[in-house]
């Protein structure tokens, strides 16, 4: 059982940290204004030269393979509602590491989304 909770921790923490790192990389690139295919390719080229992007993708890969292993031992209806905690951890990490303002309204929204995901999976 400890193995399962440890892996759940890896899925939530590594997955969220990976997305935060990817966000940091994209913030370093700056706001995209042009959506022409050639301009988008240039944006991607620049994004993949930022270290945060590779760190983020590595963490996301780690979370993905942990999820795959978890799903081989436990039911989706057990695993997915717990991984919905990522929304709460994500809001906390975004506040701490990206300096985002998470006001009461946004917290309410995040908590409702978590509750909704749990209900969808339980249903």
């Amino acid at each position, binding site marked *: 059982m400890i193995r399962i909770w440890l892996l759940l921790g890896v899925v939530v923490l590594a997955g969220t940290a990976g997305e935060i790192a990817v966000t940091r990389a994209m913030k370093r690139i700056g706001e995209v204004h042009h959506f022409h295919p050639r301009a988008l390719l240039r944006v991607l080229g620049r994004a993949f030269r930022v270290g945060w992007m590779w760190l983020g993708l590595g963490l996301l890969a780690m979370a993905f393979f942990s999820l795959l292993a978890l799903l081989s031992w436990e039911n989706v209806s057990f695993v997915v509602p717990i991984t919905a905690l990522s*929304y709460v951890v994500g809001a906390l990490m975004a506040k701490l590491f990206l300096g985002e303002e998470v006001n009461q309204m946004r917290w309410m929204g995040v908590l409702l989304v978590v*509750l909704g995901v749990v209900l969808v999976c339980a249903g």
Partner: protein
Amino acid sequence: MSIAQRLHLKTYVLIVLMVLFGATGDVLLGKGMRESGGIALKSAGSIVDGLTRGFHNRLVWMGMGSLIVFFLCYLLVLSWADYSFVSPASASSYGIVTLLGWMLLGETVTSVRWLGVVVICVGVLFIGHTPPRTTQELE
């Protein structure tokens, strides 16, 4: 159109695209993997075998294409919008997947599941009432 309005508009358009391509990708990938026999999570060999069979399925490729578009939209929107705005707002895909499954695949959806979809939508509405960007550009 003011700068703030333009920011709102392009954020919403990209989140809608993320939700549509993400949900379509998940449904196609799920259907394709089931069609090709699925992955038996027994050993490394059986996982590789399942993946190889999956790569010969047209729906799996369409699903992956859809998910690549999803990821591109995700990266683009994160270049200006808050992660704590985009990530929970994209949870509306749970609603879209449920709706697609019910309408196109004739899946039975329990009332608890519908309630979950409604709660997610209310949550996303709450998040939609906060500003999409609360930080300044890094450079």
